[in-house]
């Protein structure tokens, strides 16, 4: 019957908004990074969905629960350095919200996701068009086709570099969670799934 000792924040499940946006974005990033056809209709829709989830998470970072708010995990390089020292020494410590490295990771991933989705939308335009907007707009705009194309190439370059970087960071993120879990002696994915530690003993 001993459920004491689980007082730390890290054991509590994350709230539903954090969980839904986290897994939604994770699925969207994996699908668009690895599965869907680049620039296809499905790719564009998933991109919009990812941006919506990101926006919701950012709103939640301001008005959400205490643990989900940005103020609970401000980006701090000095805290991250300290945290890195703990990891190198294979020590585990409970943090009430994201741990310092996790926090930096979250901001980095959000930033990259914003870049990826916005450049994607810049290229694809409206989610409801059958064809990408710039194709549809050809001839309508009094702008040079070359100029348009050049701009799209720049966007595409940024889009791809940021997307690949995001996938690398996501893999690093998974590795970090695995490392912290093994140091903590418990599965840190569980709070993000929303289930509690099973069976009191």
């Amino acid at each position, binding site marked *: 019957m001993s459920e004491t000792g689980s007082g730390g924040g890290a054991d509590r499940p994350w709230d539903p*908004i954090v969980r839904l946006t986290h897994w939604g974005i994770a699925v969207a990033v994996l699908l668009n990074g690895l599965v869907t056809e680049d620039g296809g209709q499905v790719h564009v829709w998933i991109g*919009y*969905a990812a941006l919506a989830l990101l926006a919701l998470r950012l*709103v939640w970072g301001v008005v*959400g629960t*205490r643990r989900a708010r940005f103020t609970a995990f401000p980006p701090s390089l000095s805290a991250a350095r300290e945290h890195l020292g703990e990891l190198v020494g294979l020590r585990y410590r409970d943090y009430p919200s994201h741990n310092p490295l996790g926090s930096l990771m979250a901001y980095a991933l959000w930033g990259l996701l914003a870049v990826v989705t916005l450049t994607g939308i810049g290229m694809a*335009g409206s989610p409801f068009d059958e064809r990408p907007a710039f194709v549809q707009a050809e001839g309508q705009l009094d702008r040079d086709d070359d100029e348009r194309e050049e701009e799209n190439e720049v966007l595409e370059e940024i889009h791809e570099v940021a997307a690949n970087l995001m996938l690398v960071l996501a893999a690093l993120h998974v590795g970090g969670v695995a490392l912290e879990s093994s140091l903590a002696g418990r599965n840190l994915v569980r709070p993000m799934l929303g289930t509690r530690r099973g069976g009191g003993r």
Partner: protein
Amino acid sequence: MTGPEPGERRGGARSTALAVVLVLQALAAAFFAGDAVADITLAGLDLHVAMEAVIALALAAGVVFGAREMRRMVEQADRSEAALMAARGALGELIEARFAHWGLTPAEASVALMALKGFDVAAIAGLRGAALGTVRAQLAHVYAKAGVASRAELLAVFIDDLLEGPVDGPAAGGDELPAAREG
């Protein structure tokens, strides 16, 4: 002690449902906004596009307000859970302290705890794999050590402690019914 309590689960389901609605609203807002922005850049502003933009804004505002409501709901659920845990922990500590004070043996303490939880002698014997007579004797020892005559009195010791505990205001000695205190 396995899994969340029913009430807790209900609260969790409600906030999860609200979260799903918020996510859908956010998705809808993003698609509307994306379409509106694309239409405005391509075709300029007309009534149709303006309406789309308004819908997107309304949805976005709904998301923000819904999120605030959601925060209140989640935090309230957390608070009541924390209070429940504290009360549970406090009662557990109280019981342990009393048992120690009375000098119960581990076996007696275990039997006494089961008795407090409402198990009858037969059930306790079954759970402990002991004979009925053994459990009866252990319970008798518990009552004697606690200075009570029955299970109800044993229970009353703890109820009394809880009610007389850190309640604000002068704890009346029972000479007055706490009938109409604070509406």
